[in-house]
C-alpha cells in the first residue's frame, strides 16, 4: 500500500493510502470529537462533529468518511469548526429531553463529555421538548427515546457484529426513531438475542440496563475490539488453524 503525504494543522504527515482522515488524526493524537464513530463499526458520518476544513474545498468534510489524499491540507480546529461543533451539540441537546442531572449515564455520557470539552455552557435554541416514550418491556434493558441522538451505533453493532439486525431507524429528520424489529416493543422481539451489545455501544442514556439509577450506568466498548481481533485471527471458526 502506498504512502500519501498531507498537511494537518501546518504539519507534514504521512499516512497509508485508503486510511480515513479520522484514523490519521487519532494516530497523531489530535483530539477530535466524535459521537457516531466507534472503532470496530462501519462509519456513518452522521453526527458531523469530526468535520474538518480542506483547503480548496468550500464544504466541510466529516473526517470519519474522508479518505486521505496526497497533498491534502487539513485544518481541524479553526474558529469556524469549533463554532459549528458547538452549534451541533446545542442542536442535539435541544432536539430531545437530555436532562443530565437525573440521567443513568450522568458523568459517563459521551454527549455530555463532548459538550463539556467544547465549553458548551448553554443552549441558544428553543428546546423542542418532544413527548417521547420509554420502552421498558425487555427483561434486562430499557430504551429511552428522550436521550437518543440517532447515532445508529446500536443499529450497526447489532447488524455487523451480532448479526441479528434487530435495530433500525424509522421516520425522517427530526421525527426519526430507532426501532426494534418492525417497531415492536423490545420485550416481544423474536430477533433480539438479548446480547446487550447495543446497550454497551450507546453513547448516551438512551439504552441502559434495567434498574439502573442516576449516574449508575457505565458502558464498556472493549468487547468490540476483542470480537473483531478474534474474527481477524479466525479464532472463532472450527479448527481455527490447528
Amino acid at each position, binding site marked *: 500500500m502506498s504512502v500519501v503525504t498531507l498537511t494537518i494543522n501546518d504539519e507534514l504527515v504521512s499516512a497509508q493510502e485508503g486510511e480515513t482522515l479520522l484514523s490519521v488524526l487519532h494516530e497523531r493524537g489530535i483530539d477530535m470529537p466524535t459521537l457516531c464513530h466507534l472503532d470496530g463499526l462501519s462509519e456513518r458520518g452522521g453526527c458531523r462533529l469530526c468535520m474538518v476544513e480542506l483547503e480548496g474545498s468550500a464544504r466541510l468534510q466529516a473526517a470519519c468518511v474522508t479518505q486521505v489524499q496526497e497533498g491534502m491540507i487539513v485544518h481541524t480546529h479553526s474558529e469556524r469548526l469549533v463554532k459549528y461543533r458547538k452549534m451541533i451539540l446545542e442542536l442535539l441537546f435541544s432536539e430531545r429531553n437530555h436532562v443530565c442531572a437525573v440521567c443513568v449515564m450522568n458523568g459517563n455520557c459521551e454527549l455530555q463529555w463532548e459538550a463539556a470539552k467544547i465549553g458548551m455552557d448553554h443552549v441558544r435554541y428553543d428546546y423542542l421538548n418532544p413527548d417521547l416514550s420509554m420502552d421498558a418491556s425487555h*427483561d434486562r434493558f430499557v430504551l429511552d427515546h428522550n436521550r437518543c441522538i440517532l447515532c445508529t451505533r446500536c443499529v450497526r453493532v447489532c447488524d455487523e457484529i451480532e448479526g441479528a439486525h434487530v435495530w433500525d431507524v424509522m421516520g425522517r429528520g427530526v421525527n426519526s426513531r430507532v426501532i426494534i424489529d418492525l417497531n415492536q416493543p423490545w420485550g416481544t422481539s423474536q430477533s433480539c438475542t438479548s446480547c446487550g451489545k447495543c446497550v454497551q455501544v450507546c453513547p448516551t442514556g438512551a439504552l441502559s440496563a434495567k*434498574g439502573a439509577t442516576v449516574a449508575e450506568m457505565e458502558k464498556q466498548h472493549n468487547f468490540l475490539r476483542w470480537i473483531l481481533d478474534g474474527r481477524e485471527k479466525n479464532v472463532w471458526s472450527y479448527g481455527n488453524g490447528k
Partner: protein
Amino acid sequence: MTKTITIDPVTRIEGHAKITIHLDDNGQVEDARFHVTEFRGFEKFCEGRSFWEMPGITARICGICPVSHLMASSKAGDAILGVNIPPTAAKLRRLMNWAQLVQSHALSFFHLSGPDLLLGMDSDPTKRNVMGLIDKFPDVARNGIRLRRFGQKVIEMLGGRSVHPAWTVAGGVREPLSDENRSKIRRMLPEALDITGLALDMLRDATDSFRDEEAMYGNFPSLYMGLVTPEGGLEHYDGLLRVVDSDGNVLEKGLAPARYREILGEAVEPWSYLKFPYYRPAAVREARGGRATEHYIAGMYRVGPLARLNVCDFAGTPRADAELREFRRLAPRGRPVANSFHYHYARLIEILYALERIAETVEDPSITEKRIRAHAEVNNMVGVGVSEAPRGTLFHEYHVNGDGILQKVNLIIATGQNNLAMNRTVKQIAQYHINDGKVSEGILNRIEHGIRLYDPCLSCSTHAVGQMPMVVEVYNAAGALVERVQRD
C-alpha cells in the same frame, strides 16, 4: 371600609409566597390568606418515566431536603418491587434520614429563625438576617453552620454528595458505609451534641422575651399527624400513621401508611398552588352539619416536629425523652402542645433525638455490612412510600404498568399539610396586630415569623416553577387594594 393587606415576598422560607389580609368594614381582620404562587408540576411530568428513576428525579424537588424525597421515593419503589430490603440498607437509610433532620432543622433554627429570635422581631429588617446574626452573635452563627455541616457531612459520606445524593434506590442503597466514615461520624458527634445543648439553652432564654408571640402564634386547636413506631415511639423513617386531636384523644392509633387515602383528602383553592390536605373523618362530620363550603377546614391537621412530638408516646433516647417531658409541660396535662411557636423547641428536641440515634446506629456491628440492595422485578402495580421529612409526613404514591413505567404519581408534601394551619396562624397574628385598619412594620415581621415557624418549603410542596419575592396586600370590603407592602 374593608381593606386587604398583602405581605409579598415572605422571606427566609424555602420558596416564595404572598400574604393577603382582608379587612371588614370596621377595619378589623376578616380573613388572611397565605398564597403560594409557585407551580412546578412534578406529579404530571413524571408520568411516562420509570419508577427506578424516581428517587433521582423527585430529590430535585428540593435542595434542602432531597433526602426526604429519596426516602419516600425509594420506599415506594421497594413496595413496587415487593421486597424487604436488607436490614443494613434500612439502617443506613435511617442514618441518612436523621442526618437530614439535623441539617434541615439547624438551618431553620439558626439561619432562618435565629435572626428573629436573637435580634428581635422589630429590629432593622436590613440586618435581621443571617449576616446580621454573624455580625452580632458570631458564635451562634458559627454553631449553626457547624451543626448543619455535621448533617451535610454524614449525608455526603453515605451518598457521595450532600445535595441530591442518588444513593437510596428501590430495593435498598447503592453504597455501604465504610469503616473510615463510620469513625469520622463518631468523632464529629460530640461537637454536634454540645451545640444542640447550647441551642436549647438559647431558645429557653429567648422564649422568655417572646411571651406575647408564644401566646398568639398559631395557638389554636387542630389535629396532629405523624409516624410512630409500633410501640408508639418517635419515628421518622417507617412506622404507622397516628392522628390525635387537640384534647389528646387518639383518632388513628396506627394506620398502615399505605392506607393514607382512607383518612386524607386534598382540597384546592383558586388563590394558591399549594393543596390543602385534610383529615377526612373530621371534615365529613362538618359537611353533615350543612356547611358544605367549609367542609374540609375542620379536618385541619398539623405535621412536622411539633406534631410528631404530640403524637408519640415517647422519644426513645435518654436526652430527647428528658426534653420531651419538659415539652409536655407546655400544655395542660394529657393535651398536645397547640402553640406553633413551640415548633422551634420541637425542632431542637428532634435534633437531639437524631444525634442520639446516629450515635447508637454507628455502634451497630452490622452497619458496615455489604449486602445492601435487593433486586426484583415489578411485582406490585402500586407503591406507596411514606417517611417523615423535617417538615412533616411525606407521601409518594406511584402507579406503574407491568414494565415499571409510571402511569400516575401522587405526592403529598409536609408543608402542604400545614397549609390550613399556616393560614390560620396568619389570621390569628393579623387579628392580634391590626386594629382599625392600622398596619405597622412590626406586624409584617411577625406574620412572616408566624409562617416561618412551620419552616415551610414551598418549592417542595407545590413541586413549583419560578420565583417570586413576598408581598403583603391589604384589600377593603369592596375588594379594592388599599395597601401594598413589598420588601425586596
